[in-house]
């Protein structure tokens, strides 16, 4: 995969443009982990998205609370179908990027670094699956991921998102440095 990637400034423009476009079109901040959750489970806004003070919503015990009340200023969260459309579109966008970059399809291998750390066999698959569980559980527990906290939250200078982004970046850096030390 000797793809030549975009320079940093073009990528930065693209990421910012997408997050701004999404907020403008949908009236809610972009957050991929939340969209993935809703496309899988069809749930309303998760507990972590709720305001600290306000109606208890998004749980079956509070049927009286309208969904819109959970998201603060009255903007309804994306429903299941639009979330699913977003998720599938993101995969299609990835396919287009792979096609433009001439990367081909059906790769079994990842970057050499990954195999240097985790080998080639089922152990590597287990790392991806187990790490994926941490990513899925962690992002929903924290209430956002690289896009929700990182782009949308930090972009709006939301203190909780700045703290969360500093935390997951810091932990990922520490983990990667440890991997370099321990795993060869």
């Amino acid at each position, binding site marked *: 995969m000797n793809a030549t990637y*975009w320079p940093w400034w073009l990528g930065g423009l693209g990421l910012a443009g997408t997050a701004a476009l999404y907020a403008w079109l949908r009236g809610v901040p972009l957050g991929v982990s939340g969209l993935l959750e809703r496309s899988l489970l069809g749930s309303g806004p998760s507990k972590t998205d709720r305001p600290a003070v306000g109606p208890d919503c998004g749980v079956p015990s509070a049927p009286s609370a309208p969904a819109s009340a959970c998201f603060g200023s009255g903007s309804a969260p994306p429903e299941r179908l639009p979330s699913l459309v977003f998720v599938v579109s993101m995969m299609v966008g990835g396919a287009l*990027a792979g096609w433009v970059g001439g990367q081909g399809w059906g790769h079994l291998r990842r*970057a050499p670094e990954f195999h240097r750390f985790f080998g080639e066999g089922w152990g590597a698959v287990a790392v991806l*699956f187990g790490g994926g569980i941490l*990513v899925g559980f962690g992002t929903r*527990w924290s209430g956002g991921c690289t*896009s929700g906290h990182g782009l949308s939250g930090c972009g709006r200078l939301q203190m909780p998102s700045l703290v969360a982004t500093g935390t997951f970046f810091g932990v990922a850096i520490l983990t990667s440095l440890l991997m370099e030390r321990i795993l060869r």
Partner: protein
Amino acid sequence: MSPLLLRSALPGLLLGFVVGRLGFTDYGELHRMLVFSDLRLFSAFALAVNLLVLVFMTFGKGLKLPNATFHRGLIPGAILFGVGWALTGACPGVALVQVGQGSLPALASLAGIGVGIGLRQWGRTR
């Protein structure tokens, strides 16, 4: 496709394309960012955040976006995410794009992310 769905499809397509062409889905590129041997991705991310600060300062008032809150899971969740991100090279969006790019190992990441989201939901409603 209805306008509502188009409003999801357009940014979805764009984000998938940008993340893929930027190389955020390349484990080597991400790892080199996290060990500070190549700051290209970090610079892209930092530029995006700074541009968004300008955009939201200028147009944010009219959008009435909800505010983030400090809650119990904010930091422990971010810690788990950070470990998983470094191990797999995947945040939720990246896993989707990797699958779209035709990476078979990414199916394992995405399956794990799905299970993790389900576990969190189960823990929340239990």
